[in-house]
């Protein structure tokens, strides 16, 4: 690509006109500079969201209370239900696991560790989150974040969630 201006033995050397190539290169450069928009680095939480299912996995022909060996209140339950109620501003007002109220996200995390963890003996494999319709998405994500950090009794991370809308005024 270099220009040769010396003449050897009377032969004319070929001269490349770089100006046209440079023009095109600058046009390409301008295009890439103008369209360059670095996207922010976003994280994500992966979930399996099946439609709402029964909280117990009932075998066909099985009658309620027929298992005499089962004296645990939670054995046989597959789904843990968390309820989140919102205030008019869309923030979390109260939360409950089953019927027990939990105060704050730290309390929720501790309770979930106790209920879902390997030492609990429970067979939960999914969490149903009942959410007040006014709750803002960022508040919901705080709860989802706490849930997806939990490890189930079988050693797997909790990723199976279902959402149910609780009707609220406003």
């Amino acid at each position, binding site marked *: *690509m*270099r*220009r040769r*201006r010396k003449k050897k033995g009377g032969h004319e050397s070929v001269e490349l006109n*770089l*100006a046209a*190539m*440079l023009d095109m*290169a*600058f046009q*390409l*450069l301008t295009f*890439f*500079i103008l*369209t*360059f*928009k*670095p*996207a*922010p*680095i*976003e*994280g*994500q*939480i*992966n*979930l*399996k*969201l*099946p*439609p709402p299912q029964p909280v117990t996995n009932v075998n066909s022909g099985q009658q309620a209370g027929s298992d005499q060996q089962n004296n645990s209140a939670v054995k046989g339950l597959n789904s843990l239900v968390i309820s989140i109620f*919102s205030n008019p501003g*869309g923030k979390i007002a109260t939360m409950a696991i089953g019927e027990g109220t939990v105060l704050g996200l730290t309390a929720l995390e501790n309770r979930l560790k106790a209920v879902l963890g390997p030492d609990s003996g429970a067979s939960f494999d999914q969490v149903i989150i009942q*959410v*007040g*319709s*006014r*709750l*803002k*998405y*960022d508040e*919901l*994500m*705080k709860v*989802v*974040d706490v849930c*997806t*950090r939990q490890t189930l009794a079988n050693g797997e991370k909790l990723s199976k969630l279902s*959402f149910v*809308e609780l009707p609220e005024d406003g």
Partner: protein
Amino acid sequence: MSGSMNSAASAEPNLTPMLDMVFQLITFFMLVSNFQSASLDLSLKLPVVGSARPVDTEGTEDLLILNIDSEGRLQLYGYAQDLDPYIASEAKASRTKAKQDNPKFKPDDDLPATVVLRVDKQASFKLVNKVITTCQAKGFRKFALKAMNKE
């Protein structure tokens, strides 16, 4: 600067180094340009979740990216779209692709595509749930909720 050997001296700049540099710059911008980000609505304010981590799917996974603004509208390349027809057409396309990839794929099987939800943090759950249930009704089961891991 290469000079002319003629008697009438003319200033001709040596363009080669400049061209080298310009090509290097072009190469850099070509490599860092990501035209997929055009499908992301960067005006959305995503929620901040500490444990959200970037996941590199290396392009192997089929993704359906949905940008939902604070009013619950689906934003596609800067324009609001109707949710139901868009999800239905994407589900149909995903089902067709899944059938091509796996001949044993049945029409009522769960779709292999992952729905990537980029939802404005001010959107209410009622609006988000409508999007999720619409996707579930069309056969999508795998979801990825986008969030920033810092402000």
